[in-house]
C-alpha cells in the first residue's frame, strides 16, 4: 500500500502540466517520485547520459546547457526538465547543472508515459518545446475575447439595403424609413464584363440627411449621388470583428459596408460593435472631436485611461489596444490642429503634421510622450511662413502636454526647428541618414522611420515612407548598421520569484519591459521589414510581410509574434493594474508582482527575442559600404 503524499502532491498541483490533471492523478504521481538533493554547481545530467525520469525542481535553480556549453535556459521552482531526452531515445540532449542548492523530484519513465497516454494536456505540454508553449499561452489568453475570434460577418444579421444611383434624395429617405435602417448603399452598374453586375458607389446615412440635406436645404429631388459619401471605406467579409472595430475607429465611421468579392453583403453599424466592445474607444473618439478648447480636451484624460483599462479587462489583444490608443492620440492631434488653424488662421502653405514612433506604429499605450514633426510644402520661405508654423507647433505641443502627452525629452517635436522641413529637405535628410549611418543617424532612424501623417497633406507622409523603403532596401550597409543598432538592448535571461536574471548572471530587482522587451523587438522587426520592402508601420503587420517574404528561420516564423504579444500584454496589464490602483503607471516590472504564468512565459518570450537578435546579426552581416 502506498502512503498518501499530500505535501508533494500539493506542490506538484501548483504547476503546469500537473495543475491541469485530476487530483487523484497528481496524488498517484506524488507517490512515485524519488527525491534528491544537489549542491550548487553539481551536474545532474551530462550530454548523452541515459535518462529514464522526468525532473521537477522542488526548490533551487537549475541551468540547462546546449551541447557547445552555451547556456540555454535557467529554471526554477516548479519547472520541468529532462522531458526532451525522455522523448528522444532516452538520451540527454541538454545537460543540466544546479545553479543553487536544489531539491529535485524524479518521476519515473513508466509514470511519465502513462500520464502522456492518459492526459492529452500533459502530453501536449511536455512534447511542445518552450516556444510553442508560449504560443499556446498567447492563444489561450486571447481566445476569451469575442472580437478576436468572431468574423465580421457574425456581427450583423440582415443583408444590405440598397438603391440604384439613379434614385433621388427623397426616394433614398423613403427607402430608409420603410426598411428602418440608418444607412443606405447606393449602387451603380458594373461596366466591366467581370465581377458582379452592380458595384458600390457610395453610402448615405441618417447623419448625411441631417447635415447635407436638411441643414443645407437642398432640393429633395436632386440625385442621391450629390449627398452620398463616394467610395466609402469597406472591409472584406473574411475580416475579424476587431479589424472592423479598428477601421471604424481609425476613420471615425459609424457605418462600414462589408463586401464579398466586391458585392456588399451587409453594413456594420457602431451599435453592432458596441455589443462586443463597450463602446468606450469609439465613443471617446467622437467626444474628442466635439471639444472646443484645450481645457475641455484636457478634461478627457481620465476617460482615456478608463478606456485603456476597459480594453485590457475585456481581454483585447495588444494590437487592438495599441491601435485604439493611437487612434485616440491621433484624434487629439487632429482636433488640436483644427483649433490651432481656427486661432492662427488658415495655413499660408500646405503642410502635413507627422506622428512618429509608437503612435505611428499603432502601438501607443497610456504613458507616452509626444514625438511629432512637420512636413512643409517646398514653397516654404522661413521669413514669410516661419512664424506661423512655429506658433502652430507650439500651440499643439503645449496643448498635448496639457492633455497628458508629455513633451519629448529628446526634443523630437515640431517645435524644434530641426524637425520642420520641406518635402525635399526631408528626403535629403533621410538620404543622408541612410548613406551615413553614424550613431546619431541610427538613433533618429528608430524614431523617424515609423511615421504617419495625421493632419493636412497626409499623402506626403505616405510618399516619404515609400521613398525611405525604396532607398533602404538598396542599402545593405545601412541595414547592417541598423541591425547592429537593434542589438544594443538585450532582453534579460529569465525571471525568478524575486529577481530578474541578467545574461551576465547578475540579479536585478526589476526590469523595464519597454526598454528591454517591446522596444528591441520593434527595432528588430523594423530592420526585417525595411529589408523586405514592407510599407507597413505596425510591428505585427510588418511581421506579416516579413513572414510572407520567407526570410525567417523555418518553423520559427510565428515565435516572434507570440513573444511580442506576450511581452506587450504583460506590460499593458501591469499599466492597467497601476491605473486601477490609482498609481502612476510605468514600464517597470518586479518579478514578485508577476504570476507564475507570466514569469514562465516572459522567460520564454525573452528567449525568443534573444534568438531573434542572434539571427539578425547573421542575416545582415557587415558589408563594405
Amino acid at each position: 500500500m502506498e502512503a498518501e503524499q499530500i505535501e508533494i502532491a500539493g506542490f506538484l498541483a501548483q504547476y503546469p502540466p500537473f495543475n491541469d490533471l485530476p487530483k487523484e492523478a497528481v496524488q498517484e504521481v506524488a507517490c512515485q517520485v524519488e527525491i534528491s538533493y544537489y549542491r550548487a554547481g553539481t551536474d545532474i545530467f551530462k550530454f548523452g547520459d541515459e535518462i529514464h525520469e522526468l525532473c521537477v525542481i522542488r526548490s533551487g535553480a537549475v541551468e540547462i546547457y546546449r551541447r557547445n556549453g552555451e547556456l540555454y535556459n535557467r529554471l526554477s521552482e516548479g519547472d520541468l526538465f529532462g522531458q526532451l531526452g525522455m522523448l528522444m531515445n532516452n538520451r540527454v540532449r541538454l545537460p543540466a547543472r544546479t545553479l543553487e542548492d536544489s531539491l529535485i523530484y524524479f518521476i519515473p519513465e513508466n509514470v511519465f508515459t502513462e500520464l502522456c497516454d492518459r492526459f492529452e494536456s500533459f502530453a501536449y505540454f511536455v512534447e511542445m518545446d518552450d516556444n510553442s508553449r508560449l504560443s499556446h499561452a498567447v492563444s489561450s489568453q486571447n481566445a476569451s475575447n469575442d472580437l478576436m475570434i468572431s468574423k465580421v460577418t457574425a456581427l450583423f444579421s440582415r443583408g444590405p439595403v440598397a438603391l440604384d444611383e439613379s434614385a433621388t434624395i427623397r426616394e433614398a429617405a423613403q427607402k430608409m424609413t420603410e426598411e428602418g435602417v440608418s444607412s443606405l448603399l447606393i449602387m451603380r452598374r458594373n461596366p466591366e464584363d467581370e465581377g458582379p453586375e452592380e458595384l458600390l458607389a457610395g453610402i448615405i446615412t441618417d447623419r448625411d440627411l441631417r447635415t447635407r440635406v436638411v441643414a443645407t436645404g437642398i432640393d429633395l429631388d436632386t440625385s442621391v449621388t450629390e449627398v452620398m459619401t463616394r467610395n466609402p471605406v469597406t472591409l472584406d467579409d473574411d475580416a475579424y470583428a476587431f479589424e472592423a472595430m479598428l477601421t471604424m475607429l481609425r476613420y471615425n465611421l459609424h457605418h462600414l459596408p462589408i463586401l464579398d468579392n466586391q458585392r456588399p453583403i451587409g453594413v456594420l453599424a457602431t451599435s453592432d460593435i458596441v455589443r462586443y466592445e463597450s463602446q468606450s474607444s469609439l465613443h471617446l473618439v467622437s467626444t474628442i472631436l466635439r471639444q472646443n478648447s484645450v481645457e475641455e480636451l484636457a478634461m478627457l484624460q481620465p476617460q482615456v485611461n478608463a478606456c485603456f483599462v476597459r480594453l485590457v479587462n475585456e481581454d483585447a489583444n495588444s494590437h487592438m489596444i495599441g491601435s485604439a490608443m493611437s487612434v485616440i492620440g491621433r484624434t487629439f492631434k487632429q482636433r488640436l490642429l483644427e483649433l490651432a488653424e481656427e486661432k492662427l488662421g488658415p495655413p499660408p502653405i500646405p503642410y502635413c503634421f507627422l506622428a512618429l514612433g509608437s503612435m505611428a506604429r499603432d502601438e501607443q499605450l497610456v504613458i507616452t510622450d509626444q514625438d511629432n514633426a512637420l512636413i512643409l510644402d517646398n514653397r516654404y520661405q522661413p521669413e514669410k511662413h516661419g512664424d506661423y508654423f512655429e506658433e502652430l507647433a507650439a500651440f499643439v505641443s503645449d496643448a498635448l502636454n496639457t492633455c497628458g502627452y508629455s513633451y519629448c525629452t529628446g526634443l523630437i517635436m515640431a517645435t524644434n526647428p530641426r524637425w520642420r522641413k520641406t518635402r525635399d529637405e526631408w528626403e535629403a535628410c533621410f538620404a543622408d541618414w541612410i548613406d551615413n549611418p553614424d550613431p546619431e543617424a541610427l538613433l533618429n532612424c528608430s524614431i523617424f522611420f515609423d511615421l504617419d501623417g495625421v493632419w493636412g497633406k497626409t499623402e506626403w507622409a505616405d510618399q516619404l515612407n515609400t521613398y525611405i523603403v525604396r532607398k533602404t532596401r538598396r542599402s545593405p550597409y545601412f541595414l547592417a548598421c541598423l541591425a547592429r543598432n537593434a542589438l544594443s538592448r538585450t532582453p534579460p535571461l529569465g525571471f525568478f520569484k524575486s529577481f530578474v536574471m541578467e545574461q551576465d548572471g547578475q540579479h536585478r530587482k526589476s526590469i523595464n519591459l519597454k526598454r528591454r522587451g517591446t522596444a528591441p523587438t520593434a527595432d528588430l522587426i523594423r530592420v526585417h521589414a525595411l529589408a523586405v520592402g514592407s510599407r507597413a508601420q505596425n510591428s505585427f503587420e510588418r511581421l506579416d510581410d516579413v513572414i510572407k517574404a520567407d526570410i525567417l528561420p523555418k518553423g520559427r516564423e510565428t515565435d516572434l509574434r507570440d513573444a511580442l504579444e506576450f511581452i506587450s500584454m504583460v506590460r499593458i496589464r501591469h499599466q492597467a493594474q497601476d491605473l486601477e490602483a490609482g498609481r502612476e503607471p510605468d514600464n517597470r516590472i518586479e518579478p514578485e508582482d508577476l504570476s507564475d504564468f507570466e514569469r514562465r512565459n516572459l522567460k520564454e518570450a525573452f528567449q525568443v527575442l534573444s534568438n531573434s537578435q542572434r539571427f539578425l546579426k547573421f542575416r545582415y552581416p557587415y558589408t563594405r559600404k
Partner: protein
Amino acid sequence: MSVNLSDAMDWQAFFRDQALVCDDDRLRLFYETGCVAPQTPLSETPFIALDFETTGLDADKDEIISIGAVPFDLNRIRVREARHWLLKPRRKLTEESVVIHGITHSAINEAPDLESVLGSLLEAIAGRVVVVHYRYIEREFLDAGLQRRLGEGIRFPLVDTMELEALLHRKGFSKFCNRVLGRKLTSIRLADSRSRYSLPHYAQHDALVDAIATAELLQAQIRHRYRPHTPISYLWL
C-alpha cells in the same frame, strides 16, 4: 572538530549477540539481517528515515500514535516505498495531543496496536541505518513500546540529523564564539536546520512528511559537510 561518535559500540557484534538471545521471532529476524558494516561508505549505506508522533514526551508513559518511514540512500529518497502507520495507543489520547497531531479520535480508534505492525516495521528497517531528527524520541519510544509488549526492547545504530547540526552549531569552537559574542543559540529544529540548506518549507506536519524532510536534510548535510566515502560509523550513534 573531529569527534568520532562511533567508537563506543561494535554494532555488528551486538546484532549477532541479540539474534541469539532474543525471544521474539520478529526481533530475531531483524537482528539476523545484521547491521551495516561500520566502514561502509556513506554513498553505499542504505538508510531509512523514521519519524514518530507520540501522545507525549515520556517514553515510559506515552505511546506512539503514528510512524512515518522512508528508505533512501545518498542519491535517492524512494517515496514509492514510504510507509505510514497510524497506531492505537494503550493510553487514552488527551485533547491536547489531538490538537498537536491533527489526528482524529476515530482514526486512532480504528488503528491497530503497535504490536500488529511490528513485523512490517522491523522488516522495513532491517539491514538499514535508521535516520531520525532528535534521537531520544524514536529510539526510546520504540524500545519502551516493545518492552511493554514483548518484555524485551530493541537497540540499533542511529544517525541523528539534529545531532549533526548541533555538532556544527553548538559544540566546540562555534559554541565558544557564540558564547563570547553573546549570540543566541542557532536553532537546530528540523525546519530551521532545513532552511540553512535551502530546503523547502513544508506546511504539512505528519510522521511521513517529517520522515521525508529528515531524509532530505541528511542528504543535504552529507553533500555539504561529508564525503561520499566517509564511513557510516563516523556518523552513527
